Every structure is written in C-alpha cells, then in structure tokens.
C-alpha cells in the first residue's frame, strides 16, 4: 500500500518535472507552483482556453498595478 502510494508520488513528481520542462521550452513564464495549480485545474476539466485567458488577464492586471505603483512611487 505504502509502496503503491510511493510509486504514485514518484510518477506525479516525474510528470510535473516533464511538464515544467515543456513549460520552460515554450516560455510560458509559469513557475512550479502556478503550473501545478494550472495542471490541477485542467485535470478538473476546466477549459484551458479560458484558463489561459485568465492568466493573461491576471498578468496584465498585475503589470498595470505595478506600473501604477511605480508611478506613485
């Protein structure tokens, strides 16, 4: 039982590594944690198109936020 869980954990880790590598290749700008969140969301059947739209939007928002902060600073 424990070993099964272990192999499963290993498999998960390996998968995440591979995905991280692909993400790096494609220059998505996602770090490990965001990627894992995204993967989990995808696994729950969320539309990847929508998700990517959200991420882009969030990035844009944070950009503008930062810019405004810079301005105020």
């Amino acid at each position, binding site marked *: 039982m424990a070993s099964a869980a272990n192999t499963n954990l290993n498999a998960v880790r390996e998968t995440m590594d591979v995905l991280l*590598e692909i993400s790096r290749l494609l220059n998505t700008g996602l*770090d490990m944690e965001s990627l894992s969140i995204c993967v989990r*969301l995808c696994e729950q059947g969320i*539309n990847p*198109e929508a998700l990517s739209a959200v991420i882009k939007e*969030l990035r*844009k928002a*944070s950009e503008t*936020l930062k810019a405004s902060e810079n301005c105020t600073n």
Partner: protein
Amino acid sequence: MATLDQKSPNVLLQSLCCRITGKSEAEVAHQFQYAVRVIGSNYAPTIERDEFLVSEKIKKELLKQRREADAALFSELHRKLQTQSVLKHRWSVLYLLLSLSEDPRKPSSRVGNYGALFAQALPRDAHSTPFYCTRPQSLALGYGERSAALSASVGTSGISSLGVYTLNGPTATPQSLLAGQPPQSAAGGGQPLGSRLAWALPVSCSPSSALAPLTTRPALGPPVPSSRVVRPRRDGEVSEAALVRDILYVFQGIDGKFIKMSAQDNCYKIDSKVVLCKSLRDTSSRLAELGWLHNKVRKYTDARSLDRAFGLVGQSFCASLHQELKEYYRLLSVLHSQLQVEDEQGVIVCSESTLTLRRLLVWMYDPKSRLKTLAALVDFCQGRKGGELASAVHSYGKTGDPQMRALVQHILSLVSHPILNFLYRWIYDGELEDTYHEFFVASDPNVKTDRLWHDKYSLRKSMIPSFITMDQARKVLLIGKSINFLHQVCHDRTPPGKITPASKSADTPKDAAELLSDLEGAFQEKIDAAYFDTSKYLLDVLNRNYLLLEHLQAMRRYLLLGQGDFIRHLMDLLKPELVRPATTLYQHNLTGILETAVRATNAQYDNAEILKRLDVRLLEVSPGDTGWDVFSLDYHVDGPIATVFTRECMGHYLRVFNFLWRAKRMEYTLTDIWKGQMCNAKLLKTMPELSGVLHQCHILASEMVHFIHQMQYYITFEVLECSWDELWNRVQQAQDLDHIIAAHDMFLDSIISRCLLDNNSRSLLTQLRAIFDQIIEFQSAQDSLYRSALEELALRLQFEEKKQQREDEGQWGVTAEQEAEEKKRIQEFQDTIPKMRSQLRILTHFYQSIVQQFLVLLMTSTDESLRFLSFRLDFNEHYRAREPRLRASLGANWGRRPSNI
C-alpha cells in the same frame, strides 16, 4: 504541491491569482472574481480535444521559431509524459502551455491581448458552414494559412457559408479582427501572411499598439485621406464616431440616437434635424439598409419559428436563416468590441485605425449582399412550405454569383434535409412520417387495403422539389407503395433491409448536401436501386405466393374460353338447363354441372387454388330471358391479386365472357342445325316436294356457318391470341406491379374494343346481335320444318305399311275414302310447303340484309382488322353483288388506301 488532490477549482483559482499577481488574497479579490466569472462562464471549448493535434501544433510553433533542437526535446518530453498515467487531460495541459507560450526572440508582451476575450465572445465552433466541418481550424497550419483561416472564421462571420471562396478571393474583410492571433504575427512583417497586412501597419505605431492586434488594421485600398480629421467641425454636427455607434445599433434593427426607423418610408433614416454633411448622411443611409434587411429576415424567422404547423422543412429553413443571422451578429459583436476598445484607448491615439463609416461600408459589403439574398428568399418563400419551399430555395440557387450560390446551396442543403429524411424513411421502410404534409407523397387514411395500390398514395405535385424530377418522384412513390403493399396486403413481414441491401446508408446532412450537388448520379442510383429491388421482390412474392401469372392464364382459359374441351363439355351439359326460362334456374344446379364439367375434362388437372375460384354467376333476369341470356362463369379474386383484377376488370371480363359465350353458342347451334340436316337428308329424299325447301335451308345454313366461322376466327386469333401474346410479353418484361396492371388494363381494353363491346362499335354489335338472333330464329324455323316433315313422313310410312298389311291379308290395300283422305292430307302438307318457303325466303332476305349492313359498317370502320374481316366474310363478293353501298364503299376504300390491299 506535487500531489494532485481534489481541491475545489475556486480555491485553486484564488491561489493562482495570488501567485501570479504576487498579492495577498484580499488584494486580488477583484481579479479573482473576474477569473471565476470567465472560468464559470463555461462555454464549450472551441478546440479539438486531441492531444496529438496540440502536440503537433507545439512542434510546429517551435519549428517556426527555428528551434529544431527544442522541438526534438519536446517530442522526447511528450513521449515521457505519455508513459505516465497521472494526467487524464494531457491535451488540456498542453494546450494551456501552448497558449501561454511566447517567442523568446520577441519582446515580451503580457498586456492588451484581447485575443482570449475575443475567443470568448466568438466561440468558433461555427456549425453553419460546411467549410468548418471539413477543416477544424485548430489544426496546425502555417502562420499565413492559419491567419487566413482565422480571418475567414472571424472576419467574414457574416458570410460564413462561402466556404473556400472567401479564403482566396479578393474579399475585403477586416483582417485586423484576427482574434486569438498570437501577437508575433502582427509584428512579423516578413511572415507569409502577405504584404497586405505588413504595409497596412501604421509605421508610427507604438510597440504596444502593434502588439494589440485589434487596434491595428490593414487599410483596405489606399489609405483613407485623413482630411476628415482636420476638417473643421460645424457647430452641433454629429461626430462620425457617434454615427458609427448608431449604425451598429441600426444593423441589429434597433433605433439609434440619430438614425431611426421611419414608419412611412419603411426604412431607416437619419433624423432630418441633425446637422450632418451630405457624404456622411449618404453613407450612413446606405449602411442603414442592412438594418432594414435584417429586420425583414428576423421578422420572418420570428413569426415562423414558433409555428408548429409550418412543418419541419419550414423549421429548418428558419434554422438556416437563424444561422446566417448568427454569423451576422457575430460580425456585429466584433465591431462592437472594436468600438469598445477604441473608447477605452481614446480615439485620438491612432486615428487611422478607428472605425469609420467608409470602412464599415466596405466591410459590410458582403454581409449586405448576403442579407439581400436572404431577404429576397424570405420574400419568395412567403406562404410556401414543405417541398414547395425547397423548390423556391432551389430556384434561387441558379445564379451566376458563386458566393450567393454557395449561400443558397447551403440553405438548400439544410432545407432539403428533412425532405431527404422523409424520402429515405419512405423508400427504405415504407413509413410516412409527414405530420405537416410537406412530403410529395400523400396518403389517404380513408382508403381500405383492397384499394391500397390504386388509391391510397398519391403524389402532391406542388410539393415535389424542383431538384427531383417527375420520374424520380414517381419511382419514389412506387417504392414506398410497394413496401406498404407487401406489408399490408401481402402480409409479407420481410424486414426492409432484406429487400434493399442499400438501405443502410447514413442520412447525415452532409449526405444530403452531397446528394443535392450530385443529384443526377448518386441520388438517381440510390432510387433506382431501391426501386429495382423492391419491385422485383414484390413481383416475386406475387408470383410465388399468390400465383399471379397462373391466375392470369386461368382468366384466359376460363373466362375467355381458352380451354376448348371444357367449354364445349360445359355447353353440352348446360344446354337442357339453359333453354329453360331464366327464372327457373338455380345457381346450385348450375354449380353442380360446372363441377361435373371440370371433372370430366382437362380442367381437372389445373391447380386446385384456381379451380376453387371458378364459379357460376347468374346475371340479372329481365322478363323473357332464357338461361342462355343470364348464364355466366365467374372467377373469384381477393387479396393481393385483386389489385390486378379489380372490380372493373372483372366487370370487363364478364362482358367479354358474355359476348364470347354468345358467339360460341351460335357455333354450337349451327352445329346442331348441320347435324339435323345431315341426319334428315336421306330420310326426306322420299319427299321430292321438299327438296326445294331443304335446299334453301342448306344454303342459308352454310351462309351462316361461313359467317360464324369467320367471326370465331377473328375473335380467337386476331383478337384474343394477339392481345394475349402482347400481354404475356409485357408481363414477362414488367419491372413493377404498375407495369403489369397497365399491361393487363391495356389487354382488356383492346379485347373490349376489338370484340365490338365499346361504345364506338355499338351499331356493329347491334347488327351482330341481330344476326345471332336470325340464327336462332332459323334454327327454330328449321326445327319446325323438320318436325312437320318428319311427321308427314311417318304418316305416309304408316299409310304404306297399313296398305301393305292389308294386301298381305288379301284385302284391298286402300279404300277409296282412305285414298281420298290420304290425298287430302298430302295436299294439305304440300300446301304448307310454299308457306315454309316464303318463311324461309323472308328469313334469308332479312338475314342477308343484316349481314350486308354489318359489312357496310365493317367497311367503314377505322380498325384495319375489322376491314379485313369484311373481306373474309365476303370473300367471293356474294354480298357485294347485291348491295350497291358495299360496292361504293369498297371502291372508295380502294381508291383511298391502296396500301391496304
């Protein structure tokens, strides 16, 4: 972190928001709400759920960026990923990564990409266009190709069904509205998208605007002169932007601020109070026509789509109109959001890329012509439904404009889909599911099964779509009718699949479209195959299980007196019965006689199935009739074969039988007469005073015999056998039941008309009847003659005998009184002879005059074989010598048609 536990998406989303913005939960509440809304909007994914396609796309992407090594590395990683079974939605993750990917060579841009927003606004699962069905746009294409495909999907959304035409055609479509286009394509001037896009980019564009593809737009044609910007603005004049906004509303049929629906002119008009320069006013009124067109189409669909009685065809017509309208709305929504963006960014930033009326005019050119076509269609289809509607749409497809043709073709394929569905159900299952009477086959529920073939189903001429020929429609009707006939009348329960092996075809809408484009070939073949199989099966069943051909032959043998020995024997047996008055006849006696006749002749070897249908029938008795007048054979038909032998047919058969029976009886009578003459000739030799009368009798009798023989020859060989041969050939070659029925009807018709039973030859028939009557009369006259002669003969013999006896006894042979008495009696007898002679002479005269009249009628008849009959009857010109009219008409005939002789 690495465990994929099942947290709720919202929690995950929130942490994602925090992670990306780098803020705490409270700070990102706004973004989080937005994210939840977008994710929760739950529109259908517009991409292929195919991992392979996505991975191919990624590889292409990498290759595009000239990173072959990375591409190889990616395939390696992807393979590794595939070996793991942790992820269930690999494609989804990959797609996410792909859409987030950025070309490292390009300056990073994480702002202002509205592509995703547009992707939301315009889910690209366009279903109205055949083009989309065949070519999912998420397929990895080259950039140029891909952008073109995208432009076709978005830019031309109002004209979606154009298919390939738009792709390569010079259509001026708003290229800038490429939704979802990765930013680098906009900046990539060297990409194969073409120089059009490249040079259209404003040179002075800031990087940010270049990266937001929505704000950059290729000018269509030479750059618009920018005089508009510097043009001095009069007081109170409406700005063009406001007009554009108005126009966009008007496009959807909503009144704008300045442009309103004018009730009396029935068009959209700019408020006359508004101050506006003429060109703008002109342009906007031209654009406003779209609104009117849109309203027209919209009104039609709104009115019809809830009307159930409008039928399936009508519904699908409405649906296709709706689809086109949806495409149109899609375009409008793109324009709207464009306007939104401009508002946000301020129009001043890039004046050359804003929406102007002129640009709208160009962009809306195609949608306008499409809407025009739709409006015309709607007008034309008003009040039509079903097949009629399809015909109307089809007639609109005959235009030289390929785009319009494609549009109409597309609508037609949708409209005709229900019709083809009906058609397939009908020809493969024989079922008519036509609740709204749209199909061109109509069924009359009041008709009982015995008239099913003839009356139950009919063609609705008006509902035959114009792309189906009359011939095809008739075949279709026949196929379904045959199936129903098999089921309901023949009680044949063979599943339709066994009759027609071709029935397993899939009837998808694509199928319908294909059939429409290739109506001559595949469709015809399908119908032909179904027609051939079904008809053949039906004929097989009729022949095998219901002995149709045997029944046909039985009709000929019994009702048309083909079976000579049987008829002769029947007549022999019936003769004593039939001379009695008709009222004393009883059917059961006659039936018994019929049985006897059957058993005694070759008829006994016939099929029991046939013999049991044979029956006697007594016609209606009118006073003075003898049994000969009312007797008739009958043949019972029921079930499937009654379809061929209908009630009218049997009526005809009975009439023909009656005629033939009468003619046969004449023959029979004459045989009797001749027999009497032969038997009595020797006996009466001893009475020389009779020889004259007897001679007269013989002459008349042989005249009659000649006449009847020729008549019989004509009826048997020229009428019955010829027609029968024709019928038999036709029946052997018949492909469907209708052919058999037609051949049989023709057979009966020709027999009826050539046996002089139809209306045209009524006078001939009356003459013939009179001749027959003369024969009967002659028979009775001769009978009485012979009777009295034989009586006289017997008396004389008796007298002689007595005389001899007395002489033997040694007495006087005769006394004087006896002799005187004998003499007186002989004298009396001899006195009757002139009376007989004159009676015979009258008879002969009468007979001959009737025959002559008959011959005159024959001569003048139009039927060739009847004229030949007259030659045969008067072969030695016996009658011609007596009748001047015959000479005249013969001469006239000789002169008129020498070819006949």
